[in-house]
């Protein structure tokens, strides 16, 4: 750790991670602001809203948590729904494993905690395309910490501003709009469309069910429908030349 060139290359890799992550904060900071406002509006205390951003550290799952908690949903359903929302991280973890598995445990814990959508997106690209150095994991540290700091500060500002922004601005509607920005371009295959439509229909017809269980039911239903369509189409076309890149 004391030799200067190695230290420099670790620092350089960290800074590169920061630089790659910064443009994505254009989308992250408004979302954090809105979450801060929404958390208070949902009846969470300032402290709970702020700490949720570091304990859960995942935008969509924090929104689901706040909305379900506000609606008085039983804790087990809240936990189950939030967990389903975050299941996708297993994929990130799996694809990062080959680059991080050799690291000491404390590194893997830290980088695992920082492994969010946005940090994954930029760092997996660097790991795949960049030089294979001993210090490449510093890139994920840089991108992950950039996102973490931006997310905490924007949540905090949102909590402070939340009391002053009038309800009539409908700022909480920014959250489904952000999700539209993520979902619409990601529908590329027929199976994606099926997952989307089934989840949409279930989310409406399951509304009368107790405990807001429509979230978890429509999510699982959409996943199952998409998977079955994918399985069916890939069985009929054995040369599937368009596997999903992630």
């Amino acid at each position, binding site marked *: 750790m004391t030799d200067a060139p190695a230290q420099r290359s670790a620092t350089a890799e960290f800074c590169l991670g920061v630089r790659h992550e910064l443009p994505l904060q*254009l989308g992250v900071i408004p979302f954090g602001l809105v979450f801060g406002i929404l958390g208070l509006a949902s009846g*969470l205390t300032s402290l709970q809203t702020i*700490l*949720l951003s570091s*304990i859960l*550290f995942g935008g*969509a*799952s924090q*929104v689901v948590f706040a909305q379900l*908690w506000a609606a008085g949903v039983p804790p087990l359903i809240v*936990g189950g729904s*939030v*967990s*389903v*929302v975050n*299941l*996708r*991280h*297993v*994929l*990130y*973890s*799996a694809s*990062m*494993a080959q680059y991080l598995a050799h690291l000491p445990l404390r590194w*893997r814990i830290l980088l*695992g905690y920082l492994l969010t959508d946005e940090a994954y997106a930029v760092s997996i690209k660097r790991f795949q395309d960049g030089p294979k150095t001993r210090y490449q994991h510093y890139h994920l540290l840089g991108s992950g910490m950039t996102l973490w700091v931006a997310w905490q500060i924007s949540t905090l500002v949102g909590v402070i501003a939340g009391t002053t922004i009038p309800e*009539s601005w409908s*700022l909480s*509607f*920014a959250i*489904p*709009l*952000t*999700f539209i*920005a*993520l*979902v*619409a*371009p990601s529908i590329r295959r027929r199976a*994606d469309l099926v*997952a*989307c439509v089934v*989840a*949409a229909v*279930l*989310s*409406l017809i399951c*509304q009368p069910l107790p405990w807001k269980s*429509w979230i978890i039911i429509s*999510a*699982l*239903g*959409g*996943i199952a429908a*998409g*998977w079955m369509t*994918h*399985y069916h189409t890939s069985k009929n076309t054995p040369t599937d030349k368009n596997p999903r890149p*992630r």
Partner: protein
Amino acid sequence: MIWLVMVMTGIFTFGTRFVMLTGWVARGLPKWLIDALGFVPIAVLTAIIVPAVLIDPATEQIIVTHNARLHAAIIATIVALLTRNVIATTCSGLATLWVLQWWL
């Protein structure tokens, strides 16, 4: 109670990010599971979007006509498909909503 749920879901979420870095799952995930997990974002986010757009928070009924949020969502979807930009999508949707709510 809320703190307990926050911490438990936090631990679970950390678990989803950390599990494959532990080395316990030596051969990686089976292909069917990877395929299924690939549909998580679309299914989950759609399930959050659609009721937020179509269900009137006051009456808890589905509203299609005279629904400013539906128009905002349609504009946002078009902008999302054209630009693939989160800021442009969110701003266009909010702007549509404000115009419809306040000036019409």
